[in-house]
């Protein structure tokens, strides 16, 4: 084992820090610490001459551990570490601390106390550096292939993007045809043009122009050689790790050979079976063998196996001119090996049957927006005629009802965001085609927030569409005429209305697509409280999940309109591309490692790991140990905090390292105030300390800060150790409990603090000496306030007397 030689480099920031801190005293203090062989002082050390000083010391073999006191370590550290690595020292043997924002600036009113604190901070950094071990960088190969689940407009756009970038893409769609909701919707707002429009410049194999839009069937999507489209197919199993997923697809039989079918439609002319056409809102029937009109892809017929009589009939087989019909096709299982998975499963309309007072599914003349879209579509079951389903007579008076099951705490408390525009679109289309139709929209609020949406609303009003502010309480039916009556209070007129209607169009909530729960389980993804796939971070990472290599796009995370879906799809494609493009994942080994001798097979850590990085592996017949995947581990340490046997540790934040820091920080006081140990998480907690210093907020110098990856790493006995080390009080500062950057760490820390308080009480120590705070970067003032509060509290409590003295 090589002798440990620590070099300490102190930046005085152009002699600014030395106005406050006594650098001579610091240098002397540090010189005398064991294993310190070199102490240097300069204006800065993270670049230029200062950096060269460090590198020379390393190159010359003088030092093998580097401690730097530098400003803005979160920026400067990167430079130092990279440079050090280039000359051959393991970059994880470097420790950088901030004497400016963590010491000089927040304590500028008490410079001598600041200097004492700086001594303690330097000692802590040095003691930790002595215990640091080299950490390796690992490479995990990834396949340059992607899976996109869902062939709607979101999935198609992501798939085309990825294929254009050169990846092997598999697009899997559970319906027999691509297109998703767009094919039923017909037209999309705000442009009211074709819904099934998809941007695909590079993949247009026919022309070389920069045309911006092509309908899917002529977009060349199906001609892209590295885009493999599987329709009538569902994902039933996923195994493997990010970059190397093994996906099992179940391909349902189409009963028609894709290579032979010429889409001549002869089969439907002889098929004897007619079933209600659910796709067309049951406004017409279809045969057991069918194709969607208009179609996107593939241009191949399909047999509905629940309706077909198969060999008892086989009339279609006889008549097919190319022998394309194969009644004996079976389900197949297909295995795909992919590097990344993108979920684009979209959403569906809420089933309004439960809102019984609206009589959906009871009165045939009460329909939904999506069903109405089929009616007004020229290709639809009524050829664009607007009729009453009950008697097929023209509908002259139409009432639309918004927020059916949306903003409803009984069903879906959220606003589905697109229904106001959908209804306005339908109302506008009605008035354009049939201007004499009376259309009234009953609403709670009209939400037209998008770029052109308010103009759309204005045009709708100009067309003479009527608006009633009021949510209808009931739809009833006149027994003599069969006409519908909608009861509503017009709040603005303060009048009760009984609107007569031929047709009532409900705007139901948009809810997660069928199969969302099952798919989430297969992939290991979380759903949010409304049942949609949970975005990793709504603000910054809306197309990512907490699992590497798995992405989300489109309506699967929340209902959205077409423009937003496009943005989302391209974002997801970019994220997946970034993940796949290098062909490998590079990660350092700052991960957890299990001491298998100590592991008691209690199964706690696999359950608490937010990333599923821990699995149980059998070592003997009946004994299991936990084992950590370096690929999946994110280095938070929540497992460490959970293990009852101290059998698992984080390589770069070992309990021994933490204890050394605690003791060092408490070794020197130099103030008349009680020492407070503050343990901050490296995400929000430590940044709050940074910002309070950057803003020069003043708090007392008896407050000493150390950093851990996540407060979830902390164990109850560590709080007791802190008191033993000389702390009069302990502060834990973490992310807010609903915003922990490692999912659940700060919540776990809160529980441990509660437990620790109970223990302290048993030991005769006031539980108020230990406190947990949560704050974010911009709440630096909260940190300064907390530091002052704790100090005052401890002053009042007096000196801590530990049993047996310490």
């Amino acid at each position, binding site marked *: 084992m090589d002798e440990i030689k620590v070099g300490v480099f102190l930046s005085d920031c152009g002699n600014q820090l030395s106005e406050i801190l006594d650098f001579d005293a610091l240098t002397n203090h540090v010189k005398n610490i064991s294993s310190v062989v070199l102490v240097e002082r300069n204006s800065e050390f993270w670049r230029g001459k200062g950096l060269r000083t460090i590198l020379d010391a390393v190159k010359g073999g003088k030092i093998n551990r580097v401690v730097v006191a530098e400003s803005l370590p979160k920026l400067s550290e990167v430079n130092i570490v990279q440079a050090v690595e280039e000359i051959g020292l393991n970059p994880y043997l470097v420790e950088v601390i901030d004497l400016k924002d963590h010491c000089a600036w927040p304590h500028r009113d008490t410079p001598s106390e600041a200097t004492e604190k700086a001594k303690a901070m330097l000692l802590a950094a040095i003691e930790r550096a002595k215990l640091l071990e080299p950490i390796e960088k690992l490479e995990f190969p990834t396949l340059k292939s992607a899976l996109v689940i869902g062939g709607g407009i979101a999935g198609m756009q992501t798939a085309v993007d990825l294929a254009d970038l050169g990846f092997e893409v598999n697009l899997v769609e559970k319906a027999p045809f691509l297109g998703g909701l767009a094919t039923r919707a017909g037209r999309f707002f705000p442009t009211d043009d074709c819904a099934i429009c998809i941007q695909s410049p590079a993949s247009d194999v026919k022309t070389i122009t920069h045309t911006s839009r092509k309908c899917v069937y002529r977009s060349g999507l199906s001609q892209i050689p590295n885009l493999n489209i599987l329709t009538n197919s569902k994902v039933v199993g996923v195994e493997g790790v990010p970059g190397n997923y093994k996906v099992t697809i179940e391909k349902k039989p189409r009963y028609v050979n894709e290579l032979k079918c010429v889409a001549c439609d002869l089969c439907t002319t002889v098929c004897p079976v007619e079933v209600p056409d659910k796709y067309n809102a049951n406004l017409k029937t279809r045969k057991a063998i069918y194709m969607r009109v208009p179609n996107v892809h593939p241009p191949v017929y399909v047999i509905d196996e629940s309706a077909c009589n198969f060999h008892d009939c086989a009339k279609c087989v006889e008549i097919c001119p190319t022998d394309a019909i194969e009644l004996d096709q079976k389900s197949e299982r297909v295995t795909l090996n992919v590097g990344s998975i993108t979920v684009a499963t979209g959403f569906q309309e809420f089933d309004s049957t439960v809102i*019984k*007072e609206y009589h959906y599914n009871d009165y045939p003349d009460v329909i939904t927006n999506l069903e109405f879209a089929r009616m007004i579509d020229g290709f639809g079951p009524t050829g664009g005629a607007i009729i009453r389903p009950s008697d097929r007579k023209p509908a002259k008076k139409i009432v639309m009802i918004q927020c059916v099951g949306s903003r409803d705490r009984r069903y879906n408390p959220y606003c589905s965001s697109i229904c106001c525009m959908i209804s306005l679109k339908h109302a506008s289309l009605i008035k354009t085609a049939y201007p004499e139709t009376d259309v009234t929209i009953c609403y709670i609020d009209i939400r037209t927030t998008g770029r052109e949406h308010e103009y759309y609303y204005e045009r709708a009003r100009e067309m003479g569409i009527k608006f009633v502010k009021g949510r209808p309480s009931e739809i*009833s039916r006149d*027994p003599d005429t069969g006409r519908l009556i909608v009861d509503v209070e017009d709040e603005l007129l303060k009048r009760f209305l009984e609107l007569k209607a031929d047709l009532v169009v409900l705007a139901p909530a948009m809810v997660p697509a069928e199969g969302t729960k099952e798919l989430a389980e297969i992939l290991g993804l979380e759903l949010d409280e409304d049942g949609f796939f949970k975005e990793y971070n709504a603000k910054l990472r809306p197309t990512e999940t907490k699992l590497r290599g798995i992405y989300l796009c489109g309506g699967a995370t929340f209902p959205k309109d077409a423009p937003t879906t496009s943005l989302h799809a391209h974002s997801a494609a970019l994220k997946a591309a970034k993940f796949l493009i290098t062909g490998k994942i590079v990660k350092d080994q700052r991960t957890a490692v299990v001491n298998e001798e100590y592991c008691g097979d209690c199964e706690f850590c696999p359950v608490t790991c937010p990333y599923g990085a821990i699995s149980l592996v059998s070592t003997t017949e009946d004994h299991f140990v936990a084992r950590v995947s370096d690929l999946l581990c994110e280095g938070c340490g929540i497992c460490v905090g959970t293990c009852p046997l101290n059998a698992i540790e984080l390589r770069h934040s070992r309990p021994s390292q933490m204890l050394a820091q605690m003791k060092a920080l408490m070794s020197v006081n130099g103030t008349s105030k009680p020492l407070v140990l503050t343990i901050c998480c490296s995400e929000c907690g430590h940044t709050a300390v940074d910002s309070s210093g950057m803003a020069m907020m003043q708090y007392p110098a008896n407050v000493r800060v150390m950093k851990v990856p996540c407060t979830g790493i902390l164990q109850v006995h560590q709080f007791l150790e802190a008191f033993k080390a000389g702390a009069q009080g302990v502060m834990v500062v973490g992310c807010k409990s609903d915003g922990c950057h490692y999912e659940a760490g700060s919540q776990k820390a809160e529980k441990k603090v509660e437990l620790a308080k109970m223990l302290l009480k048993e030991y005769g120590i006031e539980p108020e000496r230990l406190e947990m705070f949560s704050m974010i970067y911009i709440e630096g003032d909260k940190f300064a306030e907390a530091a002052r509060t704790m100090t005052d509290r401890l002053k009042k409590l007096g000196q801590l007397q530990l049993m047996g003295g310490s």
Partner: protein
Amino acid sequence: MTSYALFLGCTIPARQPSYEASARRALTKLGIELVDLANMTCCAPPPVQSLDLETGLSIAAYNICLAEEADLNIVTLCTGCFESLAMANTMLKENEKLKARVNQILSSTGKEFKGSKEVKHYLQVLLNDVGPNRLKENVSKNLSSLKVASFSGCHLLRPSALLKFDDPEKPHIFDDLIETLGAKSIWYRHKLKCCGGLLRGYADDVALAIAREKIANTTKAGADCIVTLCPFCFLTLDLGQVLMKSTFHEEYNMPILHYSELLSLALGIDPEELALQFHKIKVYSVLNKIG
């Protein structure tokens, strides 16, 4: 023999002996034993809850305690009593804090609410203890020509989360029990709408206007009679028609019957025993149709 503690409430013994008479006779005939417990009080319906809800719940709980002590479930005739007692029963069973508070109040009476018994409306007894088949077997009169406008009133069904009696938007239990007797339960506009009864005494004009709509709608639908469950509804619709005549000069002559009366008639009980003379709108037309 299934036994229940009969909860009569205030309005029925005070104003509608015919409801009580028909109910006792019909239920006894069907094998239900009705036990009269001492020391029961008013159930504390909405008028009392309006003054102080906590007091109302405590009074309701007190009455339930009497049944718990007698180890009997409660059956009510009046749907107002049903709502008051069932609501209190459920609320206290589901909310520990509320139960503790009410028991604190009840301690002055030496009683403690335990939540060990159920509160039922007699329709539930007919449905579950007697059963539609046995009910049908006991029907001896032909009601097939009778077109009934059923009106269960609000408090049999709502608040549905606490009463859990039937689907509040599409109830069917009451209509089914009418048709089990052989009569036809017809549709009429706003069947589930309140009769306005609880406004009597405070805003008689409003109450009357609301009741009038109901009478008009049932008449328009061609009903031979309205069958009610709540004594307040009965009063509003029966006595109400007398007031409609004097106020609006409209005469509807729509007989109002308690379901228990219809039940008794269907079971063949002599109309003489049912105290039908207390009805303001005479029910001869109904009696004639039944035969």
